[in-house]
């Protein structure tokens, strides 16, 4: 299933709902489907805000696929090269006084899926997010479908 979305905040919710329904229909439980949806929320928000600099005329593509063991969402955009998985995600610590505002999106995106990969594919960013059916992160397949 392919979804084309405009680069606007309103598109984020539509993407999340489509991903959640697709995941539920392909073997993920409610909690894992919701977690994958939130990871997609963060990934799409990141593209809208940063890769596209908030330009609503730009569009991005979500490709949803499912196998026996996993549901996969590929997010493609033609914005600036940006690897959201580069570097260590800093673990947040402390109360409101000690912390900065923001900076949690990419951490959530990474932590809410079982597997995340990024490649620069020609002039496009391609981010692949996977959630395993049956919640068994050890059942990793050798490579993405």
């Amino acid at each position, binding site marked *: 299933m392919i979804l084309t979305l405009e680069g606007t905040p309103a598109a*984020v919710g539509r993407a999340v709902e489509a991903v959640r329904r697709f995941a539920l229909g392909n073997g993920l439980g409610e909690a894992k489907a919701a977690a994958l949806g939130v990871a997609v*929320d963060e990934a799409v*928000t990141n593209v809208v805000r940063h890769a596209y600099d908030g330009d609503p005329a730009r569009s991005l593509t979500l490709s949803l696929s499912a196998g026996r063991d996993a549901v996969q969402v590929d997010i493609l955009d033609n914005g600036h090269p940006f690897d959201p998985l580069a570097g260590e995600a800093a673990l947040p*610590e402390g109360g*409101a006084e000690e912390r900065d505002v923001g900076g949690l999106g990419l951490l959530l995106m990474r932590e809410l899926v079982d597997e995340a990969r990024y490649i620069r594919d020609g002039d496009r960013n391609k981010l692949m997010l996977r959630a395993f059916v049956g919640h068994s992160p050890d059942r990793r397949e050798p490579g993405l479908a």
Partner: protein
Amino acid sequence: MGGMVATSEKKVGNASVLSPTGRVDVETTPPLQERLLPLLGQAGAVVVIDFSGVSYISSSGLRALMLGAKEAKAKGGKLAVCALNETVSEIFRISRFNQVVPVYADLNGALSALTPT
């Protein structure tokens, strides 16, 4: 739009209870934040956000909560959340947001902790 936040607000004693519904994401957070921050801008305000109708919160929503928590600290107020579903609880765990705002199982628990009689 099923996912939109429609936030209701009520007063319980001296506490304000905000009850958003649906997603708290990049699209729906701004109106929630516009209600939350003015409440916490009053000295000594007590605000509970009841998450029982919220399907999920994204980092945009967490940012608004962080701004609210900082405002509460600055003005001597209190901000707490309650009734998180499994997804929201997981997001709080990952982001360690229980260090930012107190989390209660339900609204009664939050109100009795924050507004002792």
